[in-house]
């Protein structure tokens, strides 16, 4: 039941609203609170021991960008013609070929542009993101390694991160050519390279500027900025997509 509801929300995403974890309340330890005990989301951004912003915590992307990451772009996307045609087809057929209909992970950047929270962890040599969506995770190596020259193509690609001042910059490549950049179906190919710049503005707010560089699908790089909001006193719930998945038979595109 639960998985069914969540899958429907994810896939039939025209007006998805956050429906998660309302029942789950555990006070997040160690976060700033106002005098009445409420989380103080406008407190300053916390720092780690090395003086960099601490990005850890449960985050959720603000609703407007969910589904269509290009929602507030003023200019048209620099599609290659075939990619424009494919995008148009996916919209006309209501995303019936969406790989997440089979509970495959959303990948990058799509996993950030869905109505499910994710938890960022800092650990030695890595930043890890635990996604509620499809109960999956992503490793971002911060130990100085370069991106691999011949990676195994993956849905999440291969990610390395470094600090540029107070901005955490993540570069990813090594994607397979099945990717949808968002629920609406903007295409990605094996040439996709994604740069994400995470800027924590205060305790409760972060922005991620996402640059899409995929010369096979787009004539030039383009970027969007997604606002993220901290989720206090909440927790990831177990989103087991393949349990009782009723989606596939409904993916008819009518």
């Amino acid at each position, binding site marked *: 039941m639960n998985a069914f509801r969540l899958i429907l929300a994810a896939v039939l995403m025209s007006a998805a609203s956050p429906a998660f974890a309302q*029942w*789950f309340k*555990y006070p997040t*330890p*160690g976060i700033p609170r106002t005098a009445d005990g409420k989380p103080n989301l406008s407190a300053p951004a916390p720092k780690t021991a090395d003086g960099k912003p601490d990005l*850890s915590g449960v985050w959720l992307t603000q609703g407007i960008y969910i589904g269509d990451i290009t929602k507030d772009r003023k200019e048209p996307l620099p599609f290659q013609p075939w990619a424009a045609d494919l995008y148009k087809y996916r919209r006309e057929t209501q995303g019936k070929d969406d*790989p997440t209909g*089979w*509970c*495959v*992970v959303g990948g990058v950047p799509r996993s950030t542009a869905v109505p499910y929270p994710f938890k960022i*962890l*800092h*650990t*030695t*040599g*890595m930043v*890890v993101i*635990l996604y509620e969506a499809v*109960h*999956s*995770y992503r*490793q971002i190596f911060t*130990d100085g*390694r370069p991106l691999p020259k011949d990676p*195994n193509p*993956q*849905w*999440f690609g291969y990610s390395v991160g470094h600090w540029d001042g107070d901005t955490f910059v993540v570069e990813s490549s090594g994607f397979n050519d099945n990717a949808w950049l968002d629920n609406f179906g903007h295409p990605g190919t094996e040439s996709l390279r994604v740069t994400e710049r995470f800027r924590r503005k205060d305790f409760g707010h972060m922005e991620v500027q996402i640059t899409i560089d995929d010369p096979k699908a787009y004539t030039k790089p383009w970027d969007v900025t997604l606002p993220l909001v901290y989720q206090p006193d909440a927790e*990831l*719930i*177990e989103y*087991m*997509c*393949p*349990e009782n*998945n009723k989606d596939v038979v409904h993916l008819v595109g009518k």
Partner: protein
Amino acid sequence: MHACRITIAATLTALMTTASASAQWLNHPTAGIPRTPDGKPDLAAPVPKSANGKPVLAGLWRPSPGLTGDIARNLKPGEVPFQPWAEALYKQRRATSSKDDPTANCIVGGVPRSDLVGYPFKILEVPGMVVILYEAVHAYRQIFTDGRELPKDPNPTWFGYSVGHWEGDTLVVLTTGFNDKGWLDNAGKPATEHLRVTERFIRKDFGNMDIQITIDDPKAYTKPWTVTQPLAFQPDTELLEYICNENNRYFDLVHDFGK
């Protein structure tokens, strides 16, 4: 192709001894691990310690063949204290070659089954939590170590709800809040919502760790029982992206399977 291979390996769980098929091609030197003068990982080096003096558990580990597939492999016949219905269900699952295995649908193995498969997992230690990233089905598990108690009325889940604390040099993880669909191992030993699992993580040296697993599920077993799964540190390699749902062919096969 790749996902298909792995899915079949995971789901045709007649494989009581899953072979190592992971990450042979992937070689990135693991930073900061002890090495012998010739540069090879020194797996017999002492247990590393964290700032608080406790053993570091973080790293990439892989269940040794020990109990993979069959959690009771090292027990004698009759030593699993089944309740009668649980024994009948287990026998039915064996007789039908595990055709009803939930992981065939790419659902996670849960606890303790995810400790007992042929795929590696990475343990992370972060403030207030130990996290396990499983290669199997690309899933994760959170173990809260901030002192919170197990919830009284948890949402039943496949992984349950886990809290951990240190007893000397042993990380003790208690887990409850399971749904009643879990299989304890690939062979299909049943579990119910009453399942309570205790895992004791005992790192013996740099390269070796044991998980002592106690199964306490009075609805399915007449008394608690304990087994030990050895783990081997995996140097100079990495988790692969195991996307079970990509091109899952299990149900094309299962019609002829388990008959």
